[in-house]
């Protein structure tokens, strides 16, 4: 019987021999990237919670900006990658881009959800409400989240990999169109939304708040890159396994037919 600690290694060797290539999703690069991200995020937490000043009106609620804004920009980026990947799949039938699009969607949905939740947690003490259905920024962000959950659902429906990729790519494009609408809504409907306009480009933030926010952006970018690389490699291995299974099934049928 295999001892538990070597189970992972054993299955890794099994997959590796099956696929004829490395079955790991980590590398020396992702190890150091992950470590640097963890240390950086601890730095953001320390600066954001202890060093950055409280707001005169909002008090400590202002600190949610260090999660909310980087999560929102991260969601735009990851879902933007999905939109680009969707175009590349439809245009060039590039499997690499299809797997990238899928990875972007999973990470983007996570970050978009985080943006919505942190926004609501800030809205209750600040606005006096968790949610306003009439607000364009809030509603477009929710639509983006739901469309991309739809993207993941379409991918989970099953079928042959190419049809799944095509169906998902159409949904990915719809989500992509929504990204600039969500981002620009507070400017297009200036003085019409409960949500404030960009704190970064038009707002007034204390120096240390701004520095912490920029550090949070860099750390969010590194975290997204780390997750993208791992999720991409999982997707790529899945595709190879599927292709391998299909080849074997075809070979088996042919062998039966030849008998």
């Amino acid at each position, binding site marked *: 019987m295999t001892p538990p600690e070597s189970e992972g290694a054993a299955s890794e060797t099994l997959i590796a021999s099956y696929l004829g290539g490395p079955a790991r999703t980590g590398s020396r690069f992702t190890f150091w990237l992950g470590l640097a991200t963890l240390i950086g995020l601890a730095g953001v937490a320390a600066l954001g919670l202890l060093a950055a*000043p*409280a*707001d*005169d*009106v*909002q*008090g400590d609620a*202002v600190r949610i900006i260090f999660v909310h804004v980087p999560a929102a920009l991260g969601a735009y980026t990851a879902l933007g990658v999905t939109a680009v990947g969707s175009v590349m799949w*439809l245009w060039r039938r590039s499997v690499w881009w299809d797997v990238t699009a899928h990875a972007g969607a999973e990470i983007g949905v996570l970050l978009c959800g985080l943006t919505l939740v942190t926004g609501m947690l800030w809205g209750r*003490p*600040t*606005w*006096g*409400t968790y949610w*306003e259905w*009439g*607000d*364009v920024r809030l*509603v*477009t962000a929710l*639509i983006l989240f739901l469309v991309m959950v739809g993207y993941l659902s379409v991918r989970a429906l099953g079928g042959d990999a190419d049809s799944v990729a095509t169906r998902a*790519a*159409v949904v990915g*494009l*719809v989500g992509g*169109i*929504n990204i600039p*609408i969500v981002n620009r*809504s507070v400017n297009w*409907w200036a*003085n*019409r*939304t*409960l949500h*404030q*306009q*960009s*704190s970064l480009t*038009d*707002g*007034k*933030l*204390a120096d240390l*708040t701004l520095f912490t926010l920029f550090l949070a952006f860099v750390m969010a970018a590194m975290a997204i890159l780390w997750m993208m690389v791992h999720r991409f490699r999982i997707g790529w291995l899945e595709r190879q396994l599927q292709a391998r299974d299909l080849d074997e099934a075809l070979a088996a049928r042919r062998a039966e037919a030849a008998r």
Partner: protein
Amino acid sequence: MITVAVVGGVALLIANLLGDAALFFYNADEAVERRDELASQRFRLQGTPLSEPVNTFFQDRPVLAFPVGFNEAVVDVVHTGDPPELFQPGVPVVLEGAWQQGPGPSPVIASDGWHFASDRMLVKHDNDYRNRDDYDERITEADQGGALP
């Protein structure tokens, strides 16, 4: 071809929906301008509270009375219910209610024979963050007769 049709259709649908949803509130000046048109209809009004609210009674109800302003228009507000925690002069609010003829309780600032009767209030925090340390510093400086411009 189908892809283009689906994407185009959804984009059109979203644009349409947003066009309708875009009017979340009237700013105080627009609300004054459209008073006849709005009549007794419920709508949302945005403005900045100009002074400390006064706790008083109006038509046998406990209310908060305060003026809000936007773009040089002033509206006297008579609010029923608890305001959000951050409600204070200088921080914009979105109020839900309707125009009512007749002056509200004192303070009457607009004195145009109307007041806005609201029963729901949201604080509309803008992107002008104020640093608490700087604020304390300014107060200390002011107390010491310090170097304020």
